[in-house]
């Protein structure tokens, strides 16, 4: 048996210093961070590209009949889905001639917004976000983007949704 100095007295048959073996130098750490940075940039680019392609392919949706004009009184609200069944929207008859329609999904985390008649605002109960009824712009809370507006037209006393404006 050789008379060797063992760095770890608890395991005499395994004379490898665990701390030396697993030590990560700052240079190695920077290299790892660089790889992570490249991965993040590539992922952001890929998601951005997919998003751009999706926007490019998405054409203006087909018009949809929402309701008869007489069905909604002045100040009344109607829930409808446009352009797909999973896109809830709110139609508000602000005056006899003026109709406003917005997506009901909050631009923060997609919670459904509620129309508050007294305040003339849309209110998101999830994080207390508020939007103006006139143009859908965010007034307070976490949302930073306005509610997507739905273009509506009155065609022979019928209200039609004809497009989505971001």
């Amino acid at each position, binding site marked *: 048996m050789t008379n060797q100095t063992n760095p770890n007295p608890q395991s005499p048959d395994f004379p490898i210093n665990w701390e030396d073996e697993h030590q990560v130098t*700052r*240079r190695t*750490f*920077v*290299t790892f*961070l*660089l790889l*992570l*940075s*490249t991965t*993040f*940039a590539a*992922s*952001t*680019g890929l*998601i*951005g590209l*997919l*998003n*751009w392609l*999706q*926007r490019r392919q*998405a054409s203006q949706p087909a018009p949809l009949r929402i309701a008869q004009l007489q069905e909604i009184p002045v100040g009344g609200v109607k829930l409808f889905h446009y352009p797909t069944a999973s896109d809830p929207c709110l139609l508000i008859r602000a005056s006899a001639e003026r109709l406003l329609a917005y997506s009901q999904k909050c*631009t923060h985390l*997609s919670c459904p917004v509620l129309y508050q008649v007294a305040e003339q605002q849309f209110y998101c109960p999830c994080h207390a976000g508020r939007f103006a009824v006139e143009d859908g712009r965010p007034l307070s809370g976490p949302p930073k*983007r306005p509610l*997507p507006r739905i273009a509506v037209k009155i065609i022979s006393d019928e209200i039609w949704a004809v497009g*989505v404006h*971001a």
Partner: protein
Amino acid sequence: MTTIPSTLRQQQSTALSLVVLFVMAFLCLQLWLLVETLETAFHPTTASALPAVIVSAVCALASWWLWRLLQRRN
């Protein structure tokens, strides 16, 4: 065996620490941009992801430049 003077060693150590700090700051920014871009992907009609992609790429290039700088100092 040549020994590096302690002041130079200290300088190298400080430079290395600064590089680590900057790269980590860039990484935090990139992570935030990635999350923002993901959020934009769920609302494809509301905003463009192009500014986030550009800034993230610039951060990655800056990190790469700092890493190259570190390699040259060896």
